[in-house]
């Protein structure tokens, strides 16, 4: 079995298995914990509406707060959008998804994806460097914070290398492609164990704060 065959076969299957079971385990384990009852008479009663609203508007803080986080805020959302655009709308990725899902979708021109990918990669590297230098981020960062960003950078980087057929150290295309797939698998394997899980927790958390503050008569 070649490295590429491993990456396309058992490697991918194993990563997906760990990802699925891990995500399910973590979500179920969290949400099944007991919830403390709040007996205080609420001020605002439309807590569901407020929760749903907070899921959306939490992305747009008031100006007096936003002005101190503008760089981080914009770069944060930008790299997420770039990453998912490259993942979902890169020509060679669509057939890959189609073989699992049975259907495909239109994709972006390769050049556009390359530009988006380069932009995303640049932001991620800048944010990684910022994490190492900024007094707040240096203070609060853990191994998970560094590893997670590196594991997001790697698929983008290896994707570039394999698509552009750049062959550092005279490595063959098949090996580069295998490394690209393995980097994605590493991301999938790590996903349930670290902060990447915010993909699943962020919206429930936003909902909670919206509903909790609505009970007190404040829009979160």
């Amino acid at each position, binding site marked *: 079995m070649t490295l590429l065959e491993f990456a396309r076969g058992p490697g991918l299957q194993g990563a997906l298995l760990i990802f699925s079971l891990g995500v399910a385990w973590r979500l179920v384990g969290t949400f099944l914990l007991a919830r403390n009852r709040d007996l*205080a008479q609420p*001020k605002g009663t439309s807590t569901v509406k407020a929760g749903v609203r907070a899921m959306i508007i939490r992305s747009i803080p*008031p100006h007096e*707060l936003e002005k*101190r986080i503008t760089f981080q805020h914009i770069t944060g959302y930008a790299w997420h959008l770039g990453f998912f655009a490259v993942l979902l709308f890169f020509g060679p990725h669509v057939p890959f998804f189609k073989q699992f899902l049975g259907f495909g979708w239109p994709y972006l021109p390769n050049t556009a994806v390359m530009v988006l990918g380069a932009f995303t990669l640049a932001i991620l590297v800048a944010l990684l460097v910022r994490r190492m230098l900024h007094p707040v981020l240096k203070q*609060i960062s*853990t191994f998970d914070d560094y590893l997670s960003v590196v594991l997001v950078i790697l698929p983008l980087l290896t994707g570039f290398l394999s698509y552009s057929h750049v062959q550092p150290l005279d490595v063959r295309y098949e090996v580069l492609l295998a490394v690209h797939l393995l980097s994605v698998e590493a991301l999938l394997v790590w996903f349930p164990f670290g902060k990447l899980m*915010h993909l699943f927790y962020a919206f429930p958390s936003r909902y909670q704060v919206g509903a909790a503050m609505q009970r007190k008569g*404040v829009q979160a």
Partner: protein
Amino acid sequence: MSVDAAAFQTFREKAGQLRTSAVPAAVPSDVRVDRAKTVFKRRLDAGQATYLETCIHCGMCAEACHFYEATGHGRYTPIYKVDLLRRYYRRELAPMGWLRRLVMRDITAKDLEDWQELVYDSCTQCGRCDMICPMGIHISPMIGIMREALAEAGLQPIEQRALAKEINEQGTLLGIGPGTYQAVAAELRGRGVEVPLDKPRADVMVLMNAMDAAVFKDAIAATARIMNRLGLDWTIRTGAGDAAAFDWTSGDERTHARMTRRIIEDAAAAGAKTVIVPECGHGYAALRWGGANVYGQPLPFEVMAISEFVGREVQAGRLKVKKVAASRSVTYHDPCKVGRWSGVLDEPRQALAAIGIEVREMESHAKTNYCCGGGGGVFLNERAAKLRQGAFRIKMKEADATGAASVVTACGHCRMTFMAGAQQANWPTPIESLVELVAENLAE
């Protein structure tokens, strides 16, 4: 409107003496850790777990924190202040805890000691960080859990420890108790303001607090004049205790529960339909949002902050007011526990508008308001004096930018912080009480 400057200094001196009168808790290290972890375990639920799971360590909460803004120290990042709770959760309760226990170390007594400054000195539980987190993490209630854990471990600030001892053993707060309330009522009666004390039954019960009784007697007089003008069947019951809830800010849940039950049972005994908390942010939030949970059932009465009550009565047309004689502008400082914590944002502004005062808003106001720097018991914490003043300067700058002639607020604790901060910074802007302003402008 006047403030008794001598009484203010005496109150501060008495508060300053708390450091010398307190005895540190002699709790062995392992017991400290066990007690803190017991609190963590009891208080963590699915809601808190969701918040703790979703943090991406982006650090944006620091940018909403006045203590970080004033110092630039990463330690003061709000989410870092609850890191021991997070570490406990991730290691011992989280679904992946079994795995993390292999690589994560347990919390230690040294950690608890190190977190004292972060939890008590550099956080006022103002909740501004709650408004910025892109993940929607509700950080300020978790600070409450941290405080409860540290208090249980005997690590609350020494001033708070001394206050709890006095409350529990003597039933007074800085020497102020039922006897003081009676003396204040007599004094106000002498000034022509009737304060009905200890009526066995009343529709409305107004609470007292030590700060008002010692320093802001005019706020009590103003409240009484408004109640009397509305013709309400009201009373102040000296046995109900102090509304200030210092025990709540320190995390001393036992004392807090006892004091809260006392208020609730007293109000229930009087058949009160409404309990009004004076200009005291913590007292209001503690009773309004924590009272029922202490009592174990919904409260048998409505709880209102005086600023909320006055605004509501003015809006409803029941409290008739006149416009101020000369046009004037003020800026309104929202006490965090009354505003962002409890949604009393419009009522004070409506009351000020009704008496013809122009409110010039600070850039950060209402739900994004900056704390004065002394909330959450920080005002009493001598160790935090420098941090408090740094935070106060941010507030001062925002107030100055409005060009308003004075700052109005609806919390005695905020007022004291402003007065102390202004004294230190030679800041000339006066700080006024909302209820006093309204009472001064009641229609004939």
